[in-house]
């Protein structure tokens, strides 16, 4: 009796595995998401930043809250080759790294750059990392999705 149950269980598991193997499983590797140039976006009155060129729109309010600032004239946004979004702005102390999800941007890393806040930040695409430039001070920093390099 127990043998027969085990056999039924084994057949069921084998059937499930074969059914799931027949489902969609196409995976494309080595996708390069890198934006060659950062996007410089002025959020609207509702703090919605819209990038026409790369077709993304999101609210910057949570980031402003995190930075303890009321507003930002311009948000600087760049996506690295792995697909992570890097966001910063003048007056921010950090660079925020977001991972895209279904209708979401999930914070992957908050990278502290300077306690005093960036004066005139810019984000440059540099192959395997993102270069953070503060044009006000002349300082440069290298970051990736894991933090400062």
């Amino acid at each position: 009796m127990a043998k027969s149950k085990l056999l039924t269980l084994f057949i069921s598991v084998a059937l499930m595995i074969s059914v799931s193997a027949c489902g969609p499983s196409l995976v494309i590797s080595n996708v390069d998401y890198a934006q060659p140039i950062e996007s410089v976006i002025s959020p609207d009155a509702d703090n919605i930043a819209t990038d026409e060129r790369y077709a993304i729109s999101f609210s910057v309010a949570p980031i402003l809250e995190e930075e303890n600032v009321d507003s930002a004239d311009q948000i600087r946004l760049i996506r690295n080759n792995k697909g992570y979004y890097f966001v910063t702005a003048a007056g921010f102390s950090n660079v925020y790294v977001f991972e895209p999800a279904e209708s979401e941007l999930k914070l992957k890393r908050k990278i502290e750059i300077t306690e005093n806040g960036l004066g005139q930040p810019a984000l440059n695409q540099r192959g395997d990392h993102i270069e953070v430039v503060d044009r006000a001070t002349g300082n440069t920093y290298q970051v990736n999705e894991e933090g400062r390099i």
Partner: protein
Amino acid sequence: MENYMKKSLSTFFAMLLIAVSYTSVEAQQSDYEIQQEFRAEYSQLADWIDNAVSTTDLEDISDRIDELESDYRGHSDLINAAIYPDSYQSRIDDLRSRFSAAQQNIATIEELNERVENLSTDLDDFRGQLSEMDERAEALQREIRDSQANERRLSNLVRQYRENVEERDRFVGEFLEDLLSRYESVDASTAAEIAQAAERLEENPVDLVRTILGEYVNYANQQTDLSAPEYLSMKAQHNYFTRLWDNIGERLTQIFDAEEPVQAYQEVRDLLANWNSAIDNRLWGAISNAFSQNGIELDNFTNASGFNNALQSYVNDATQTSRDQNSEEDLERFQNFSNFWNNTVKANWGETLMASEVLSYSQLASIDSQLDDWNQAAIPTSNLMLILFLISVAVIIGLVVALVRKK
């Protein structure tokens, strides 16, 4: 020396500092900024090119394009990505192509400006010379009026006056010929550009044509005692103007009266029609009088074909009369007509008769041919042969009668 060394060292360090800070700033530039600066410099150069109005404006632009190309060559990949689907090279090529088009346009505009300036000068000269000729003509007319007593002097003045009028007509004709050659091959776009440049002219060629025609109409209306060849010259001049206006009028009004070209064109056509009527009012009477004064009474006529018909009819009738009557009077009539026709009409009026389209070459030749028939018919036939024949017959008859009687 020590001071000098110190100074040199401090200068060296200052320069080194500047170089290092420049390199560091260069290295810390934002990619976004680079492409924005490229876009800004491109737009500025494009604006300069588009707004350039003289070769001076274009002088440095070519060098600036070269500078832009070399300054940003190292960032071409970045710029290509930023301005896709445009590219760094296509923007540089675009500037060069705009520059070359602007160079051509400016060269055309400068050439047109020069052309308009020359035209303006020519118009001034033309007006000046025309006034001089008019003054001379008026002076001669005054002298003609004052010199009625002296027939020889009067004849001399009339000749001078006619020469002056002919010279004026020739001068106007040459000026308009020149105008025609300048503007007959002008294409529509160039015409529009000339029209803009011509707005500066105080009196443009269309105004001048209107003024000249107005003067001709007045002259034709006021002169009631001119001779037939003078009216024929006027008619020839009118025909010349009409042909010229048919060729050049539309183009000239489009260039120089761009706001209302159709109206301007029609105004000149109306003036030409007025001028023609003024000439016709006097011309046919003057020709008829000239024939009449030489004892040739033509049927009435009021146009060119009527004149030709009157001549044909006169010669045909006279030929028929000569054939019927063959009198001395007919011969005299022929000789009178033939003299006037050959020595006055053909010799003095011939060219203007054809130029004025009053008589064509073939019509003149046809009258010549009919004159030959008239000549034949007009020469009186001799009766000598008939008399000799009758005498011979009488002698033969007399001899025959004498012989019969002897037998």
